Every structure is written in C-alpha cells, then in structure tokens.
C-alpha cells in the first residue's frame, strides 16, 4: 500500500484514479459546505461531512436531517448563514432522535419512503440529554439512522464532562486537582453497546482516522430500514488539548490502543471488528492530550495509567481486537 510518509494513511494521490476517495472528486456530494465556523482540526466537522456526504450518495440525494443542539449545529448555522446543502432541521438539545422519528413518520404517511432520515448530534445530546428519545426511537425500530459524533464532552459550552467523557480526563467540571484528578472511573456508558442491546438492525462504531470505513458503514446503514446507530469518535483539539494537526493521528491511537473499539453489529450481536494493526500502549494516546497531562506531570501517575490500560485490555479481549 502506498502509505504517506510517517503515517499509516493511504496517500490518495498515489492511488489509481478509480481507487481514489470520492471526496477528492469535484463532483462529490457536498452536504456541509466550507465557510462554517468549526475550529481548526475539528473532528466533528470532518466526521459529519464524510458521513452526510456518504449518505447523500447512498440515497441519491433523497435525504433530510435532524440535528441536536451543539457544536455541529452552532458552527454550521449562524443566522442567516447555513452550511447545509441537505434539508436540515434543528429543534432542541435532547430531542433529535424523536424529531427524526417524526420526520420519518411524515415521509411514510406521505408515501415518500424514498426520502431517508438522519438524526445526528454530539455525545452530550446523544448519550446524556437525548438518551430517552434515542432509546425510544431504537425500541420502536423507527426508520432513522442516528449518528453520534462523540468528542467525549460538552465542548460547545466550554468542555464540561459528559457521560461519554473517559476516566481521568480533565474537563471544566472534572478539574485536574485533588487526590483523584480528572473524571471519575465510573462504570462507563457505551452507547453503541446499549444500542446493540436494543437488537436494532444495525450498530457500528467508526472514527475519523478511517474515513473510508466511516463511509462504508454509512452506506451499509442506508441499505437497511429501521433504527440504525453509528457512533463516530471525533477528536476535539480544544477540549482534548491537542494540536489541530494531530486530530486524525489521535483518533487512530484511540483505536490502536484498544480504548475505542471499532465494530459492527446486527440485531444484538457483534458481527465484525476492525483489528488493531499496530498495537500501542494507552500512554501513547494519553500523552499528546493536555486533558491527561496530570497523569504525567508533575509526578507520573502510573497507577492511573495502569487503570486506563486495563480498560483498553478489557476491550481488546472482549472484542478480539488483536
């Protein structure tokens, strides 16, 4: 494979034209146009564009979207501007899955089942405040693909802890002070596994480190009907305290350490996992992020790092990532 120097990314320019990414084509779908106000290196903007563009291609443009309040909504639609080239509705923070259900119901009632519906939001809007609506949408098997762009915190309001914030991470509400700095080691809240427990037709995870995998999963989801869930890990340079140019590399480290398992599931069962190609210790993922700096200085917290490593090892064993 023609990898780019110093990375495990395939260089698009080095590929034959027919194998090049559709995103390199001037004729590509363009669900979110440039000029929006996302931060430099925003993983959510990248993930949402690839996901929505893939959905537009998969549906031949017969697509409408419901969006939760959050970064994605705010940076894409500062009145009177909008980046969205697909019909798009923002209602509230906690109701995007239910709004999407309503949109799908309207399309069914109107006999326009060719028009497909996507609901989307960040981790706060999905795994916390919107969780009841999400679970209801799953349980009824409403014809919606819901995409969560998980940047592991409430970034739009200034980096507070969400139910998806990892243990030990510093946020504005889990400061790196005291005997146990950063976020607590709770029981965790794996929205993809909870989605899978609803036995819906399709559940998948993806990251912005493997955009073709993300595209393929969106395309696969759009071949199915009923409730589908896609959980995409997206880096947040601001909230994670990482360089904008490292967004994709850090997302890749999340997968290669085992901290973020990439898998697919159907009707309650895990059906495929993306194996780790180059195993890395969690330290490699934690060290470049300022939200974990207190694990390395002033004194190294090897005890805490070991607990994080244990979580990664559990994922590796559980999903068979090696």
């Amino acid at each position, binding site marked *: 494979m023609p990898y780019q120097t110093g990375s495990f990314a395939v260089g698009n320019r080095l590929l034959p034209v027919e194998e090049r990414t559709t995103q390199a084509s001037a004729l590509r779908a363009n669900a979110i146009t440039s000029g929006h106000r996302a931060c430099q290196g925003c993983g959510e903007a990248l993930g949402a564009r690839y996901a929505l563009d893939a959905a537009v291609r998969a549906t031949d*443009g*017969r*697509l*409408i979207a*419901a*969006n939760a309040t959050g970064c994605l*909504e*705010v940076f894409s*639609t*500062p*009145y*009177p*501007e*909008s980046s*969205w*080239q*697909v*019909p*798009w*509705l*923002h*209602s*509230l923070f*906690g*109701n995007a899955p*239910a*709004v*999407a*259900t*309503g*949109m*799908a*119901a*309207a*399309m*069914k*009632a*109107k*006999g326009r089942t060719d*028009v497909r519906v996507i609901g989307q939001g960040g981790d706060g809007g999905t795994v916390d405040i919107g969780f*009841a*609506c999400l*679970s*209801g949408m799953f*349980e*009824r098997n*409403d014809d919606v693909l819901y995409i969560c762009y998980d940047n592991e915190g409430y970034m739009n309001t200034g980096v507070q802890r969400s139910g998806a914030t990892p243990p030990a991470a510093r946020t504005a509400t889990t400061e790196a002070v005291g005997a146990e700095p950063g976020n607590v080691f709770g029981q965790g809240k794996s929205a993809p596994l909870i989605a899978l427990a609803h036995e819906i037709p399709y559940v998948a995870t993806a990251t912005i480190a493997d955009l073709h995998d993300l595209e393929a999963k969106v395309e696969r989801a759009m071949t199915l009907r009923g409730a589908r869930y896609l959980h995409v890990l997206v880096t947040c340079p601001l909230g994670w305290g990482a360089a904008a140019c490292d967004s994709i590399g850090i997302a890749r480290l999340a997968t290669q350490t085992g901290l973020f398992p990439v898998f697919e599931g159907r009707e309650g069962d895990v059906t495929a996992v993306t194996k780790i190609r180059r195993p890395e210790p969690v330290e490699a993922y934690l060290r470049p992020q300022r939200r974990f700096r207190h694990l390395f200085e002033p004194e190294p917290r090897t005890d805490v790092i070991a607990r994080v490593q244990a979580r990664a090892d559990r994922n590796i064993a559980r999903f068979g990532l090696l």
Partner: protein
Amino acid sequence: MAAGFPAATLRRMLRQIEGSRAVAETVALCRPEVIGAYPISPQTHIVEGLSALVKTGALAPCEFINVESEFAAMSVCIGASAAGARTYTATASQGLLYMAEAVYNASGLGLPVVMTVANRAIGSPINIWNDHSDAMSQRDCGWVQLYVESNQEALDVHIQAFKLAERLSLPVMVCMDGFILTHAFERVDLPDQAQVDAFLPPYSPRQVLDPDAPLSIGAMVGPEAFAEVRYLMHAKQIEALDAIPEIAGEFAQTFGRASGGLVRGYRTEDAETVVVALGSLLGTLEDVVDELREGGDRVGALAVRCFRPWPAEEVSSALGRAKRVIVVEKAFAVGIGGIVGLNVRLALEGLGIDVRDVVAGLGGRAITAASLRHMLARAIAGELEPLTFLDMDWALVARELERPHGPHAENMLRDLAGRL
C-alpha cells in the same frame, strides 16, 4: 337548531359519547398524518381512541407513534410537521410541563401542531383533577390557546384549530377541562367526513423539509435579529385575533352552529356585574346569572374562549359598561394572585371598573352554584376582597400555619381525617 343557516348543510349525527371519544373521532375526521401519543390522565382516552382508529386502518395513511415521554410526543410532532405532515398530540398537567421546551420550540419554528390539553392541576402535591394551572403555565409560549365550554364546542373548536394553525402557520392548543368534559358523556353532533373535508383543505406547509428544495430550519439567531424574529410570533398572534372569528364564521356557515371565536357574552348587555371565566364553568355560571336576574340583579357572564392571543378589545367592549367585573379563575399565580384577572385589568385600563379575582376549583374542587351565588351577593354588596379564594378552608390553613415544620400536605390530610 340555529336560525339563519341553510337547512341543506345541516346533516346531523347526534351521539351520546364521552368527551374524549368525541375529540378522538373529530381529530380523526381532520385527517391527521402523524400523531405522537403518550398517556397521562385525564387526556388518555383521546389517544386511546385515536390509536384504535389508526389500528383499524380507518385513518390511513396516518402514523400513530407511541413515544416514551411527552417531550418526545411534541418532538415527533415538530419533526413531522416540519416534514409537511398534519400533526396532533394531546397532554395534560405534568405532561405539558415535561414537554415545555418542545412546546416553545414548535411555536418558535412556526409549526401548525394542534394539541389538546385536558386541563389538570400541577403538583406538588400531586393531583389528577381539573384546574387550569397547566395551560396557564404555558400562556406565553407562543401557542394560540382556545378554551372550550362543552364537549360540542370541544369537537367544533378542534376542527377550527387545524384550520387556524395551518392558515397562520402557528401551533394551537385546545384546552378542555379534564374529567368535567373529557370524561363526561354528552350528546354531541359529529359532522361527517365530507363536511370536514369541505371546511379543512389538505395541509399545505409554508416551509417544508424537501430534498428537491433544501432548507435549513432552526438556525441560531444572535442579538442582531432575535427580537425581530420573536416579534413575528407576536404579529402572527395579532393576526389570529382576526382569523379566529373569521374561521368561527366559516364554521358556522358550513356546520350550522356557532362555536369558537374570541369571547362570548351571556346577558352582558345591561349588566352591572359581569363574571368572567374560561371553560366548562360557564354552564354553572349561566344558571347562577339566570337566578340572580330573576331576583333583580343585573348580572351577566363573559366566556373568554381565546386566552392567547389576548382579545383585549373584545373583552373591553364586552365589559366596558359594567360597574364591576369578577374574574373566576381555575389557576393561581403564587405570590401575586389571579392570572386572567391581570389580563382583564389590562383590557379595562382607565375605565374605572372594579375588578376582583376569585380563585376557584383548584385541584378539582367543585365550584357549586351555591358558592357562586354567595360570592356574587358579597360582590354586589361591595364586600369581596380584591383576591378571594372560593370555599377556602381557612381553619385548615390556619392550623398548618401554626405548625413549625413538617410536610404540609400530609399534616392537612391528617387534620381533615381527624374531623370525621
């Protein structure tokens, strides 16, 4: 039968049915396309009725969604309405509060959702019975609020509500007294499908999510235009002050009976004392007015049928010749007093009319003719306080006020039990 209506239009189907059933069948006649449903007393029978009608296929194509909360019910309506469907839901009390965020959102987005509120008290203490605390808590949310006096009016006003909502692209709440109306079996005249179809054309949205003409709806608006956008909601409500009587007039032409509108006076022409009220109380009130009239008192009643937008001119012209106005209301703004009363005072500003607030019927306490008679006698004698609580058990209150601590509701219930 009302005079002046062409006989040919009067096809009647009289039935003795529960108020909720009548509303369900009427909403069905309005051909809803998406219904978001969640149970809460005393609204539940309405969505139960609709569920059965959808299940038989009689309403096809209609999607009935059993959601997981009232917040989701209104959110489903928001999504469906924005996608161009005629949408309906019903709720009450805690349910209305639980969906409050989405209630404001629906009006902000200008979506013509129609919702029945089966009026019920709000806790704590938890109470399932009728008063207007629920709808009154949402009086400033940007929805039109129509209050109905009877099951026939409930049925008629629902048909008008869809027309109003879709004509102005704004949501409409039809408020009907929980249990008193929703669970009462009354004779109603249900229109037939052809009549409703003639009155209510298919929904043609002003804005819609359509891949052939992509729109972004629900953008973030900063200080540069927020006030202007909000003002448009107010302008629409002012428009509704004209549209509501117009639609009531069109309804009368099609169905041969008068229903809805902004206000309705009862023997107010020469009245010195006028009692203002909303909803089903009007029935009892009119009986009391008749009795007092027989005794020589010049008393009248005014039904406020549309509370939002506030029909200040109509209220003013209906009450402007009275000496005193008594506002009997089934809600109470803690820390100040009457809610409707404040609105009435605004409408009567500068006219020198004495306005008194009477809070009555909270949490389902019966408002009896005897209590109203007694209260009115005191009012006419000039003995009524500015804020009166009808049939308040002051001994019970006084005893609890003397206690240094403890759970009030439980203490008072124990006191009541001790009296037996």
